[in-house]
């Protein structure tokens, strides 16, 4: 069987981001494999270890995405396919390009992160599934292969459910699915020699972005920061807090 993880390279959440000329400028920002995609990569490596087959990472993004792809290869994925494109391309358009590569790869199972840490989008997995005519299961917390189908547990708006899914299918990953492994030193060394095939997005005949980012600005946190010392008289501090919430903030 073949397993694919669709990954992205995003800014490290702890790293500062800046805006230049109304657009986010990522130069100087530490870029990492999206933490949500780590669950996806871990899952396809586990599937390969348990059932044999091949674990492939696929991405759509700028050239620098290769770094994140090397991380996934260092974790244990076999090879990568990177569709290169500069600038912002919306997930629906990306899905059309990814679907062309995936149709050729013909995997049984595709995983990707539940939400992207840069565009805060949850659309890529579902849109890619649609482009391929495959089902999608979002926010997966448990996954196993069973008689040529997948059995998965995933979250809904409230509660969760267990589903049986015909393959091929796309699943989006989240915390709880597994514990992503750290790349080992031998893993990192091996990853350097693993194949990454690059395809220019233009060659796939996919149109331009359907969505344009007109302007971006950093949201400043404007918090009052009023702090009451409740170490000696907790009851009095609690009373003052509730009074402030009732009379000043008017939220209680």
């Amino acid at each position: 069987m073949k397993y694919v993880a669709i990954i992205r390279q995003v800014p490290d959440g702890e790293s500062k981001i800046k805006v230049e000329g109304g657009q986010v400028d990522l130069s100087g920002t530490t870029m990492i494999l999206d933490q949500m995609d780590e669950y996806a990569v871990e899952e396809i490596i586990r599937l390969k270890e348990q059932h044999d087959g091949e674990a492939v990472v696929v991405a759509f993004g700028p050239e620098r995405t290769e770094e994140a792809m090397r991380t996934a290869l260092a974790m244990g994925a076999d090879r990568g396919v990177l569709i290169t494109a500069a600038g912002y391309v919306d997930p629906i358009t990306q899905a059309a390009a990814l679907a062309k590569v995936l149709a050729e790869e013909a995997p049984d199972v595709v995983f990707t992160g539940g939400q992207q840490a840069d565009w805060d989008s949850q659309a890529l997995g579902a849109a890619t599934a649609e482009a391929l005519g495959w089902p999608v299961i979002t926010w997966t917390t448990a996954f196993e292969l069973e008689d040529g189908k997948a059995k998965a547990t995933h979250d809904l708006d409230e509660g969760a459910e267990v589903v049986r899914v015909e393959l091929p299918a796309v699943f989006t990953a989240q915390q709880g699915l597994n514990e992503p492994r750290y790349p080992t030193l031998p893993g990192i060394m091996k990853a350097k020699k693993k194949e990454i095939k690059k395809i220019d997005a233009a060659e796939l005949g996919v149109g331009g972005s359907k969505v344009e980012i007109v302007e971006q600005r950093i949201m400043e946190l404007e918090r009052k920061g009023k702090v009451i010392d409740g170490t000696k008289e907790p009851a009095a501090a609690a009373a003052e807090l509730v009074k402030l919430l009732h009379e000043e903030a008017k939220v209680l």
Partner: protein
Amino acid sequence: MVLVVLDHDGSKLRKSALEGVTRGRKLAEVLGGDVVGLLIGPGADAVAEEAKDYVSKVYTVTGADFETYTAEKWAKAAQAAAAAAGAKAVVAPASRTGRSWTPRLAYKLDAALLEDTLDSWAEGDKVFATKYSFLNRVLEKQAAGLPAVISVKPNTTPLAEPAGAGTVEPLSVELGELERKVEVLEKIVESGGKVSLTEADVVVTGGRGMGSAEAFGMIEEFADLLGGAVGATRAVIDAGWRPYSEQIGQTGKTVQPTIYFALALSGAVQHQAGMNKSKVVVAVNKDPDAPIFKESDYGVVGDIHQVLPAMIEEVKKLKSA
């Protein structure tokens, strides 16, 4: 024409449905035509009686095939309603399920997807929206052509008022092979959650400093008292004290309540990403240097096991006053 997909619980419309109607009306003012609604799944026929006061026509999609949710079926139903209505724009809630079927719909309609939007409007034949990005740290304005599928972030939009009686039209939707590939085996009901976390006006989140799963009894009591929902940090989920469904943060849920209580948690970026758009943030932590105090409007430095019971008593007093 604008189609609004209306979320409901089987007996009444959810708040998010009325937020969607407000957005739909705003778009229709510029794009022209009426605002029509779609109700899918069990109870849709009953809820239609309420919904028809908000839109000129309510499509309902019901029947054995729509007893359980899947992204494929909901996208198919929305596609059918959009075609029946001749909709240029489709508005839907940015709930977890909403965000799993709307990308499918956008792809089917060859439409732009504006996701998890704070506001949206039309100018000429273009649509615009604002949304957060980069883990809620950036506010961005997006533009797209028509058709467009727009999902509405919960708690961002005034609720629509009724506007007179519309009609109800059942819509028959034939499922294809794709829509039969997912079989729901078992429903797992969320523990505790009386109020939907992402729609709650009050969220009370406990961190590792609570010390134990048992200590969350206090958090539950406080949340119940305020009609709110319980949240938890990643550390708490990792410790197994609370279910994943309650996790607030980058790898969990994003909430935007009127008041957010951050109790016995330090305030990591991972957590901030899920709550930093709350209207008022209140923190209690025993460490005066905890980063959460800088991200809060009001804070108490102290032992949660002393401060929280006192807060519960004070709120009870306030309620009975």
